[in-house]
């Protein structure tokens, strides 16, 4: 299954509707982005039960915090992922506490702090999602540049495209992706 959404204009419209208190907008966001949120939670936490709890919490929190959605920050996907990241961190902390308490009871030993989320599932999967919805040729240019690690000259030749066009796609594409990650950071650190 792939997550696709419509152009940015429609996403911004959806964000505006949610901010205005339209429950149907929340339902539409759930239809579009619950697989993204769920997959991130599932990879980060490992169990379906926890992942589904996170999905529930994210969309409930999205509704409650709809005033914090900034339609000007692009697709609401990054906003939802930011909320998800926060919730996932909460579950991890909770798990660590439970684990530590059990350990303390058993051995009175202090265990190490929870492992930081070094797998970056939230960011990585959001970027996969963004590349999927970005469309070609920009997405292909970015994949060739960063996943296949090809130079812009090579890409231009392979795609039979002027070098300036390739450069422009890399610039705009990377800036757009960077902005999405900034949004995740902004929301998850609140």
């Amino acid at each position: 299954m792939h997550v696709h959404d419509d152009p940015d204009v429609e996403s911004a419209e959806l964000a505006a509707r949610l901010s205005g208190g339209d429950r149907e907008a929340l339902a539409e966001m759930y239809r579009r982005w619950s697989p993204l949120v769920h997959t991130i939670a599932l990879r980060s936490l490992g169990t379906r039960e926890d992942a589904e709890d996170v999905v529930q919490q994210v969309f409930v929190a999205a509704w409650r915090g709809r005033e914090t959605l900034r339609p000007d920050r692009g697709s609401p996907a990054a906003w939802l992922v930011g909320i998800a990241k926060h919730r996932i961190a909460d579950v991890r902390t909770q798990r660590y506490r439970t684990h530590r308490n059990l350990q303390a009871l058993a051995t009175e030993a202090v265990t190490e702090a929870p492992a930081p989320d070094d797998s970056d599932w939230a960011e990585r999967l959001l970027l996969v999602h963004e590349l999927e919805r970005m469309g070609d040729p920009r997405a292909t240019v970015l994949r060739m540049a960063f996943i296949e690690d090809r130079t812009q000259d090579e890409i231009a030749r392979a795609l039979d495209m002027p070098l300036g066009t390739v450069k422009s796609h890399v610039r705009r594409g990377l800036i757009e992706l960077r902005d999405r990650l900034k949004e995740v950071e902004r929301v998850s650190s609140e």
Partner: protein
Amino acid sequence: MSHPSDDELVDLAVGEADDPERAAHVAGCDTCSAAVEQLRRTAQLVSGTRTYAAWQAPADDVWARVTAELDAELDAETDAESDTRTDTRTDTRTDTRTDTRTDTRTDTRTEIGAAADAKTRADAEADADAGGGTDAHTPRVADAPSVVSPVTAPAPATVTRLDRRTRRRAAGWAAGLVAASLVVGLLVGRAIWSPDTDGQVAQVALSTLDTRQRGGEATLVRAADGLDLNVATARPLDAGDGYLEVWLINADGKRMVSIGVLQPGESGTFPVTQALIEQGYVIVDISKEQFDDKPAHSGDSLLRGRLPA
């Protein structure tokens, strides 16, 4: 020199820049080097992604959980109550968006109770679906009188679909016994006809089957979207370790529908339809049920009465 543009910073980040002066500026500028670092990290994260992520949608009931939680919150605001159940995993079997009455009932349960109840009901429904009502279940009607009306052949019980929230239950009664208890119902149901007072359509006293002692009453009233059956008991009925269930039994003695669960000591309001009444489901019955995964009427009727036509 001024700060490089975003485009120029990208070129630096991805190693496609060819202006040493800009590179020198960035190296000495915290803002710009932070920006370049951010772009590099973005590129790095892209490089670590596989082209396709195997997206996995959450289970179907998660959206219902979201709406249930939000609706519970909305109800709490409406009732001006303090919101103490924000993180409660709400009974997912109840679609609370369209049924505020059910909401209220769900919300007042404890989490464990709700879960157990959901399970019971899930099992009950599964049984009803699988069994199709052919499961012969002998009712334990206390002191059933020897009056037996002529029912010639046992007919398979028919389940009428009321709507989603009424947990219909298949009832396969031994036909003779149904008829017997039905006669009791007819005998004890002392009808009081008071048309069109406060939307009241019909009222009947509910009495015990054995001693014909009056123990409550059922009133059919016109509601905004159909009919409501209000059921009240004079004294709290003893549900033992089970629960009380309200049924509408058809006058033909062969069919019945469950219309809901009655809390001991409380009155209950159960939405019914005009069509149901017109089809002859006019005998109100309160039974004592066990949490036994058996969807059929237990046969243990506590009170009964027939609504006047």
